């Protein structure tokens, strides 16, 4: 008997099977559409495309099966059979929220540029839609080479975003630094991938998880991957590009950079370095710890003496990401879950802080702190929002960062009490720079020559901040919703590496 209509369940299965393809292709189609549309529809079309994509990505979360560490929504497309390469996509507890975070932030980025971007608007939204597609692809590729391809291809739109819509002349230098640092790191990873390919004959991640490399080779490969991820994270000696790129990027560029691109490195550690090279990971844990501790303390201290608003937040990102690496390499469930949570939380909080700076910059066209003061009189709503995210940034209990940092410290404590103690000083320093920054910008006396016009956040900006506030509070008060889907996957990573 021939079935004529599909049942509801079958439709759901088909939808699930093609959901990732949809998420990848829809922004690209949107970009193509935007290219041909008349100018007046450009922004609204891009916004609706990215919103639809965000809503679609929520289905990942809804349909996600919490009880298994397996990859879900797996899609396999034959791509290059002669080299045993396939487009192989899937989501597990680790990558689930990163995909959602990417789709969550892109509409906000498009919204940020609604008024402030006046040149090359069409190209602006196209760059963001392509970037969105690349970011989703990075997080759901289960093939090492294709992961690399998308890891790198993020460079092209990001280079253009920093270079074209950045604010000052120095942006060119920043774009250069961003491009070359990232490229230099990641080409070594390419060689490592080729080496892995020759040992195993495949770059399929699930097969690679079952492969064991000799310890010597693990160390070599780990270092090659490290070169790439450490630049992206950024670990301390190679973090120079980050403050530059952040300061010179447009607001939306900073949002994406802080929100998603910094997570690529830590995601790479978690997805590739730790499960694929467990022995090397153990071997290098002291190195990571040392570098991270230096980063936490050094970056926090550097933050205190900055006078550029964006640089402050950029350096605080360095410190937070160092926390994340400490958590990852504590190699136990609390540490890793905490670091994933901190990555997500940092993606929300520091993006929001960059949005705040964007608000200030749009109004007063400067980012130097000494020019600001007494914003509370001219921008009361803004001051409240800014306070909220400042407190989020110093990980006040009740906000998302607290849960993450707390879990990280718990995780690290089981390994090494000294590291935990040193890392905890980072929290103190974090409080210091965050509050001091807030003081300098919002309180104090009027500086009548500069900031004396009442110009509070408009409705568009409040709507931009609202989802971020909700997400931060939600994650801080009830983190179980976020932790639950990742338990199985994280436990699997740890069990797989025999870290207990």
């Amino acid at each position, binding site marked *: 008997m021939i079935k004529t209509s599909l049942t509801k369940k079958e439709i759901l299965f088909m939808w699930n099977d093609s959901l990732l393809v949809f998420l990848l292709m829809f922004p690209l189609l949107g970009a193509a559409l935007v290219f041909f549309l008349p100018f007046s529809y450009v922004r609204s079309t891009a916004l609706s495309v990215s919103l639809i994509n965000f809503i679609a990505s929520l289905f990942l979360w809804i349909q996600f099966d919490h009880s298994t560490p397996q990859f879900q929504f797996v899609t396999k497309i034959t791509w290059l059979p002669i080299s045993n390469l396939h487009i192989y996509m899937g989501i597990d507890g680790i990558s689930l929220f990163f995909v959602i975070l990417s789709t969550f932030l892109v509409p906000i980025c498009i919204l940020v540029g609604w008024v402030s971007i006046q040149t090359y608007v069409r190209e602006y939204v196209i760059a963001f839609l392509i970037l969105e597609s690349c970011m989703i692809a990075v997080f759901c590729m289960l093939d090492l080479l294709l992961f690399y391809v998308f890891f790198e291809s993020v460079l092209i739109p990001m280079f253009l975003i920093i270079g074209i819509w950045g604010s000052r002349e120095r942006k*060119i230098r920043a774009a250069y630094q961003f491009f070359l640092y990232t*490229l230099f790191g990641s080409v070594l990873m390419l060689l490592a991938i080729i080496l892995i390919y020759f040992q195993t004959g495949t770059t399929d991640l699930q097969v690679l998880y079952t492969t064991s490399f000799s310890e010597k080779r693990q160390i070599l490969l780990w270092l090659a991957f490290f070169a790439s991820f450490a630049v992206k994270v950024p670990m301390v000696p190679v973090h120079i590009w980050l403050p530059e790129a952040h300061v010179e990027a447009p607001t939306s560029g900073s949002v994406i950079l802080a929100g998603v691109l910094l997570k690529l490195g830590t995601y790479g550690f978690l997805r590739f370095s730790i499960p694929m090279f467990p022995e090397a990971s153990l071997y290098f844990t002291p190195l990571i710890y040392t570098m991270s501790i230096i980063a936490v303390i050094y970056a926090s201290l550097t933050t205190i003496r900055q006078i550029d608003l964006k640089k402050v937040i950029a350096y605080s990102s360095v410190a937070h990401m160092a926390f994340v690496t400490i958590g990852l390499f504590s190699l136990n469930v609390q540490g890793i879950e905490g670091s994933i949570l901190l990555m997500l939380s940092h993606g929300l909080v520091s993006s929001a802080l960059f949005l705040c700076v964007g608000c200030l910059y749009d109004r007063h066209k400067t980012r130097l702190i000494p020019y600001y003061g007494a914003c509370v009189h001219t921008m009361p709503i803004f001051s409240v929002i800014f306070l909220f995210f400042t407190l989020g940034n110093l990980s006040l209990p009740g906000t998302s960062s607290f849960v993450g940092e707390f879990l990280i410290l718990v995780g690290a404590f089981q390994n090494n009490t000294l590291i935990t103690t040193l890392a905890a000083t980072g929290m103190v320093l974090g409080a210091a720079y965050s509050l001091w920054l807030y003081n300098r910008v919002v309180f104090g006396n009027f500086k009548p020559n500069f900031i004396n016009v009442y110009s509070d956040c408009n409705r568009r900006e409040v709507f931009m901040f609202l989802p971020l506030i909700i997400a931060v509070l939600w994650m801080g008060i009830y983190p179980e919703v976020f932790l639950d889907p990742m338990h199985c996957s994280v436990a699997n990573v740890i069990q797989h590496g025999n870290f207990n």
Partner: protein
Amino acid sequence: MNFISLFANDFQAVFPELFLVTATIVLLVYGIVLSTSNRYDYPILIGNVSWLAIFSLGFAFLLLISDPFKNSILFYNSLLIDPFASFLKGLIILCSICAILMSLDYLKQKSFHAFEYVILILFSTCSMLIMVSAYDFLSMYLAIELQSLCFYVLAASKRSSEFSTEAGLKYFILSAFASGIILFGCSMIYGLTGITNFGELVIFFTGNAAIPFHLSSGILLGILFISVGLLFKLTAAPFHMWAPDVYEGSPTPVTAFFAIVPKLAILGLFIRFLLFSCYDLMNVCQSIIIFCSLASMMIGALAALSQKRIKRMLAFSSIGHIGYILMGFACGTIDGMQSLLLYMVIYSFMTIGAFAVVLSLQHQSPSMKYIEDFTMLGKMNPIIAVTMSMILFSMAGIPPLAGFFAKYYIFLAAIESGWYWLATIGVLTSVISCFYYIRIMKIMYFEKRKGWIYTQGVDREKSVILAMTLFFLCFFFFVPSPLLVMTHKIALAFCV
């Protein structure tokens, strides 16, 4: 048994070449008779002849792909047809078509009225077709010479420009010298072995221990000489001195032609000679190739950094690309061969695109010589700017553009053969070369200048070429397997 019946089938097998030679001669006669005719008031035939030449090249391409002779040795072992040769021939013809298409507008714009330009391109294309299928020192050398002779004239074709004359002269002297070196190598091998045929050389070299010691050094010297000559023609690094000058001095369409087509042919010949005939001496030759590859990559990356003129920069960039190609060559494996073919295809597309951009900008009133002249292109002509930046990203090997896959397969082959350090250096030089590729992008988008330059639109031929190359570079990622499978098959067929 007369001459014709002796070669009857052979003539059928070289039908594309035969057609092309005939068409060229007919076009030459047509051009000369008409352009000197008083009755038609001495018409300027360059456009007319160019289009006819493009049609004949297209027809030759059709003949080539419908050729029933897939594997054959012709004319008393002097020519060989195999999938490798056919593939390269197809590529050469396509690139020649693109080169002529690109130059149409330039010729009109610069009042370049000599239709012999196209005839010379056609002749050199014929010679390159023969070169690719050469199976004997004699046919090889003759093909090289025919090609080089056409090139000397092409380089010096713009007589009003001192640079062009100088380029022609330089190219003539150095290239004639290289030809002499090749000839000397051939005669050494011939003198010591009595063989000029590639197929017989294979038999002679198989198991190189069999070569008597007193002969082997001489034979090696011969191989060395031939390699040096060919590397010279390939603009590989220690022998690259002429390339930037010639590239810069020659008229731009000629440069475009030089940068793309002869490399394919010479590489084909080089591969035929080293990987086919001297495969058993490969371990000896390998070191030369590796050295040249290394030097080319480094010089390509470092020297291009400080260039101010766009054509010179492209010259050094093409030297760098030759370095990567030679890396695939040095492996001497099937994968190496495949990666090399892939790289050649993608390199040709990228270079065609880059030169089409340069040419389409160069017909403005103050012609674009310097990289600085690209300033504000992002504002003046955004689509050209996007195209150029994609081409440059691809040349730099940024995924997911096609250039990445070319480089990836080269490194894959190098690591497979155990050349870890070579691959590492290749990767690092490719990062260095990113500097100058993105420098152009920086100039196009980010830099400001005082006045505007009014640009004319790009003519239809170049826009079609640009659109096609851009499409290829951007969308290669989605369907890579046809090209990869094709190159793989050809590599297999060659190596078996």
